[in-house]
Every structure is written in structure tokens, then in C-alpha cells.
């Protein structure tokens, strides 16, 4: 009891000293560099990191590690699952100029909008010496985040080399081969993939479709193309682009053959379906691995596998970390994102979550990586090959929105049996509405 009281008194005294020190420090800084004053307790800097989907930093234990290395830094992460929702709220805050985190994630489909329309709202990372990192990143990754006048607005976290994820247990039940090499041969083309789907459908377990949604089929196919919705001069060309037409037509074929589970990507139903076995295959960019693990849970361990994608290599997605102009602790934020995107850390995220590194140094490190969750699939090799072979894509300002309108219209074919022509008209109307 007396000991406790003494301890208490000591604590109070210590607290008073710390508080006084903090106050003095606050007075002393005067000039108003907010990083000194805003988080008074013990001079700790709280870095807010605002992300979408699954970047995997927390899961890979990177924040803990960084906080151990930098005891004065505390990292707080907020996360929105749906990128579209995330982008909406980010845009609102950028327009208002408040409530922005120190680090904001940017999806590759939005990076052109950042570099072309909002370069004044994001920090030029060259001011903190980002220049010296140029050689460490894949060329295309780096140049996409660079403005015409040379500002660097984001550091790349990952890229989205594509593959096909599938459920071996469902394949077995339907009497299909489960070996990834054999499957890659069977579905070397998209037609082959659809044919195998029809075979699956004949003997499939009840309530199980071949594919999750034609939206993800379309998404993965369009990722195999270099030129999609915009050409290099920034003109909208999706209407006459044969690549868009091919991806569209194949998706329509899959819908008309009733091969999909008719789910809406990112919807709660879609999430539930991962564990329920509602579909046997899902086109998966590398970052999807973490998502599958999250949704299918421990019960999916060892049931999944990964094979090479039909129709060649492609890239879907991948992200950047940026610092808004209005961020509170820009210098500390830069140090954090430089560390998070360094090869060692990117390699760790890949091993834990599957997000494929955009740093060339990291790619070497993970060449032999395997993933137990996916039946020990050689993910380093599968995604590494895809990353090497995938085309460098032309990015446009409204890439993400155009894609959303097209997949929306495809859902009409898939879920309502609307004809392809009618859905295409809907898509065009939708795109016109978006671009306004």
C-alpha cells in the first residue's frame, strides 16, 4: 500500500516533468513547424496512413518494425475496402484541403488523374531526395507517377501481375485435372478457359460456378493490353479499340454460357462467396492473394492453387504512396514511405500478402517464394514471369471510371440477360455521363 502510494506519487511527478518539458518545447519552437507541437505527449509524431483494399503493411508487421526503429513515430492506419469509396472521400478532402492523412494511397488507375489534374495538391517527393530512388523501381512504375514537368508524386508499392487462382477441391469434384502446369496448358487461350468451364459446369458441385463474375474476367483480360481506354495522346479511344472489344466479347460469351456466379466484385455477397465455394476460378492479380486469404479464411488453406493466366501475361492494378500538400508531417511521412517501398519491405509484404513488388531489388529477392495457402504454388516464379512479360500500359485520367461503367454494363448481360449490343449502348451512355 505505501509502496503503491509512493509509486503513484513518483508517476505524478514524472508526468508533471514530462508535461512541463513538452510545454517548454512547444513554446520554444515558435516558428510553427507543426511536427513539433501537434502531438505533445513526449514529442511523439503520429503519422496517419490512409489506404484502401489490402496493402498488407500491417499484416506483414511493417508498422511495428518501423515504430521500433523510430521510437518517436506512431503509425495510425485507416483502411477502406472499396477503392471507389476511398477515392471519393480523398477527393472531397483534397478539395476542402483538410482532414488529409500524412500518407495517402493512390491506385494506378488514378495516378494519371493525380499527375495531370492535381499535381498542385500533392507533394513533390524530389524535395526530399526521391530522385536517388529512380533506378530501384521498374521504369513504367516510376514514370507513371512523374508529371510532365518532372515532379515525382508517389512511390510505387506494388504492381499487379496476373494469374488464375482456382479451387483444387472443386476441380477434383468436377473431375478436372488440378495440376497447375497441366491446367496452364489446357487454358493457354481464353477459349480454352471457357471450354474447360463448360466441362466443369457439367459435373460441378451444386451451387458452384466456374467463375466469380464476368467483371473480373473482363478486368483481367483488359490488363493484358497495352492500350485500353486512352491512347498515348490522352484521347478517349475505348469505343474503337479492338482490344476492348475482344475482352468485352469474351466476357459476354462467359455470361451467355452461364459460367459465372453472377456476383458483384467487392460486394458483401462476393466476399461471402470466397468461403462458400460459389466459384471454382477467379482471375487474380497478385494483390488478390491477400484478399482471398482474408475472405476465404483459414478454412481455405491448401484448397487454393495458382496457375498461369490464359492468353498471356498482364497487369491489373498496383498502387502508390503519396503525400498530400496539406499533410502535417511531410518529412516523417516521406521517411516512412521510402522505408515501406524499399526492397526488403516490399519483399516481406509479398511473402505475407502476395502484393507483387514494384522494386526491382525486391523482385530478385522473392524469385523462389512459395505460398502454402495456395498449395505451395511458386508465386515468385508465376508472378515474376508475368511481371516481366506484361505490357507497359497507357494510363488515362478516367481509366478507373470507364472500367467501372463497362463492368457495370457487363453485369447487366450476366445478371439480367440483356443483349450484348444493348449493354454496350448502356456502357457508352455511362461513360459519357462520367466524363461529362
Amino acid at each position, binding site marked *: 500500500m505505501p509502496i503503491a502510494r509512493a509509486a503513484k506519487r513518483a508517476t505524478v511527478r514524472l508526468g508533471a516533468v514530462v508535461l512541463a518539458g513538452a510545454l517548454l518545447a512547444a513554446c520554444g519552437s515558435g516558428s510553427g513547424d507543426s511536427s513539433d507541437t501537434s502531438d505533445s505527449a513526449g514529442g511523439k509524431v503520429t503519422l496517419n496512413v490512409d489506404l484502401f483494399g489490402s496493402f498488407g503493411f500491417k499484416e506483414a508487421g511493417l508498422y511495428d518494425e518501423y515504430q521500433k526503429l523510430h521510437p518517436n513515430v506512431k503509425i495510425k492506419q485507416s483502411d477502406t475496402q472499396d477503392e471507389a469509396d476511398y477515392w471519393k472521400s480523398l*477527393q472531397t478532402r483534397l478539395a476542402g484541403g483538410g482532414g488529409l492523412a500524412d500518407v495517402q494511397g493512390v491506385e494506378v488507375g488514378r495516378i494519371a488523374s493525380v499527375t495531370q*489534374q492535381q499535381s498542385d495538391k500533392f507533394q513533390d517527393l524530389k524535395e526530399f531526395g526521391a530522385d536517388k530512388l529512380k533506378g530501384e523501381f521498374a521504369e513504367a512504375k516510376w514514370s507513371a507517377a512523374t508529371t510532365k514537368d518532372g515532379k515525382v508524386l508517389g512511390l510505387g508499392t506494388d504492381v499487379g501481375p496476373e494469374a488464375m487462382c482456382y479451387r483444387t477441391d472443386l476441380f477434383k469434384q468436377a473431375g478436372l485435372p488440378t495440376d497447375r502446369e497441366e491446367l496452364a496448358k489446357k487454358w493457354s487461350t481464353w477459349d480454352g478457359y471457357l471450354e474447360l468451364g463448360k466441362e466443369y459446369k457439367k459435373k460441378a458441385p451444386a451451387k458452384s460456378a466456374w467463375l466469380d463474375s464476368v467483371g473480373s474476367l473482363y478486368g483481367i483480360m483488359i490488363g493484358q493490353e497495352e492500350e485500353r481506354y486512352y491512347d498515348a495522346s490522352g484521347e478517349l479511344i475505348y469505343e474503337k479499340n479492338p482490344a476492348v472489344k475482344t475482352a468485352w466479347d469474351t466476357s459476354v460469351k462467359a455470361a451467355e454460357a452461364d459460367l459465372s456466379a453472377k456476383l*458483384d466484385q467487392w460486394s458483401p455477397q462476393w466476399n*461471402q462467396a470466397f468461403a462458400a465455394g460459389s466459384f471454382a476460378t477467379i482471375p487474380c492479380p497478385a494483390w488478390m492473394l491477400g484478399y482471398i486469404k482474408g475472405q476465404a479464411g483459414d478454412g481455405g488453406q491448401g484448397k487454393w492453387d495458382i496457375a498461369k493466366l490464359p492468353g498471356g501475361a498482364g497487369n491489373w492494378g498496383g498502387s502508390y504512396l503519396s503525400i498530400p500538400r496539406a499533410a502535417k508531417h511531410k518529412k516523417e511521412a516521406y521517411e516512412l514511405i521510402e522505408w515501406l517501398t524499399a526492397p526488403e519491405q516490399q519483399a516481406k509484404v509479398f511473402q505475407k500478402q502476395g502484393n507483387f513488388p514494384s522494386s526491382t531489388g525486391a523482385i530478385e529477392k522473392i524469385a523462389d517464394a512459395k505460398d502454402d495457402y495456395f498449395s505451395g504454388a511458386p508465386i515468385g516464379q508465376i508472378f515474376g514471369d508475368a511481371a516481366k512479360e506484361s505490357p507497359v500500359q497507357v494510363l488515362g485520367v478516367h481509366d478507373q471510371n470507364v472500367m467501372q461503367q463497362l463492368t457495370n454494363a457487363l453485369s447487366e448481360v450476366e445478371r439480367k440477360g440483356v443483349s450484348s449490343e444493348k449493354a454496350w449502348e448502356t456502357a457508352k451512355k455511362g461513360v459519357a455521363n462520367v466524363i461529362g
Partner: protein
Amino acid sequence: MSLTATAKAGPSRPAGTGPGPDDGRAAALRRTWRKASPYAYIAPFFTLFLAFGLFPLLYTAFVSLYRVELQTSGEMEWRGIANYTALFTDEYFWISLRNTFTIGVLSTVPQLAMALGLAHLLNYKLRGRTFIRTAILLPYATSVAAATLVFAQLFGRDFGLINYAIGLVGFDPVDWQTGTVASQIAVSTIVIWRWTGYNALIYLAGMQSIPHELYEAAEMDGASRWRQFIHVTLPGLRPTIIFTVIISTIGATQLFGEPLLFEGSISGGISHQYQTLGLYMYEQGWGFFHLGRAAAIAWVMFVLIVVLVGVNALIARRRARKEAGR
């Protein structure tokens, strides 16, 4: 005291003739205060209204005449009334207007009818009626987001409880998200669930102001409970009913949270099948970042609500006049 002071000080001292007696000045001050104080008391509301009500309203009107994009909100391009005229040829605008109307009818009519019935039952002497009365207000106390998310699960196509129940009876599962009628019924259900209790309590309050003697008299004349309801309760409740109809109309026109969260889709389903005007405005403003267009939709909604409420009031007044003439 102040009265006599005014009487003395008022006329006796012409303006500007040096310092008057102290009590005279105090009286003048008091007089001004008495005149001004009511304004001071209501000032907080009106200041807030000017800042957060009138100013946004006018600013929205101003913005609706320009092309403004959220990403480049500094650059405004004059469009005149083009944002409005574009709406008339915009198919999605008409779809959302129609949806707002159909969902409004689907939700308001059953909701008010059920509320009326509930209130009538609650008006009887029941055991534990305070508890029951509080309980029916509970859905209203739930947040829209929470309620909608739960309902979205219930209405799920593959794993939803409702489809499971339908399956037990032997019907095919319904795709509550995709079908136009189905999705609108689903959204209306959420609205009905949330607001029925609230309206029932308003009706109950109205019923309790109906003199008990009227019921006694009706009972003496041998009127059944149903007849009492038709001939005593309904006429007595008319002003309350008109009030709830107007409030529900405004609510239905602004319906937003339920359709937005039902599937998490800002376009109100893949073919806009349950997109309401409020949601369409949100999609234009915060989905596509066309602030000018969103502002135009907001104003159209505002005018629409004013017209609807006006029509409601007109009908109500004509009925009242008819009653008086009878």
C-alpha cells in the same frame, strides 16, 4: 416603475440638450432592449440558418450555373441553364425521378396505413403499454447504416435469410438486388421498418387529443370498434395525418441512405433500378465529381419538394373547407 419613468422622461427632454437625468437614460435603454431583445433571442437560430441554410441554398444555385469539377474546383466555367436543360434529356435523371416516386409510394402508403393501425391498437388499455410504445420507436433509433446493412444481408440472393424462407415454402429465390420491382420493394421495406413506429407514435398522440366522450357516445349508439375508428378516430386525426403525409413526402423525395447502402452501389444497382434522385445527385457530385450538375439536381429536388408540399397543403385545405361547408 419603468412605465412612469418613460412617461416622465419621454416628452420632457428634447434631443441633444445636454446630459439628462440618469433614470431617463436607463429607461431609454430599457425601452430599446425591450424592443430589441426578442430579436436577440431568436438571432442564434437565424444566424445559423443564414450560415448553414440560406447561404448553401443560394450558393448551390450559383454553382448549378457553372461547370465545376471537384478535382479542379478552382476552375469554373459558365454554363447558364445548360446543367438544367441537360437533365431533361438525361435518361438516368428520369429513371431516378421515376424510382423516387415508385419507392416513395411503395414505402409511404403501407407505412402510414400500418402506423395508423398500430396506433389504434396501442390506444387501447394494454398491459405494459409504455414498454410497447417505447419499443415501437426502437427501429427509428437505429442508424440507417446499421439497419440497411442488416437488411442487405437478409435480402442477399445466395445466402439471405429471406430467400431461404422463400425456398422453404417452395418458391425460387428472388434476386433482390437486380430486379427492378424486387429491389424497390426491398429498399421500401427498410424505410417502412424504420419509420412505421415513429409515425404510429405521432398518430397515438393525435388520438389522445380526441375527446373521450365522442367514443362513449359512439359506443352508446352501438358503433363497433371499427366504425368508431372510421367515424371518430379518422376525422379527428385529419390534421395529424396531413402532417405525416407531408413529412413522409419530403422524406421519400430525399431518400438516400437506404438505396446507397443496400448494395453499396452509388448508381443504385447495375441498371440504376433503384437509384433515387438523392442518390443520383450524390453519384454526379461525389462519384463523378461534377459538382455543377449535382447542384442543379439539388435545386430540382428542392423545387420538387416545395411543389409536392404545396399540392399536399392545397388538397388538405380544400378538404377542410368542404368539411366546414357541410
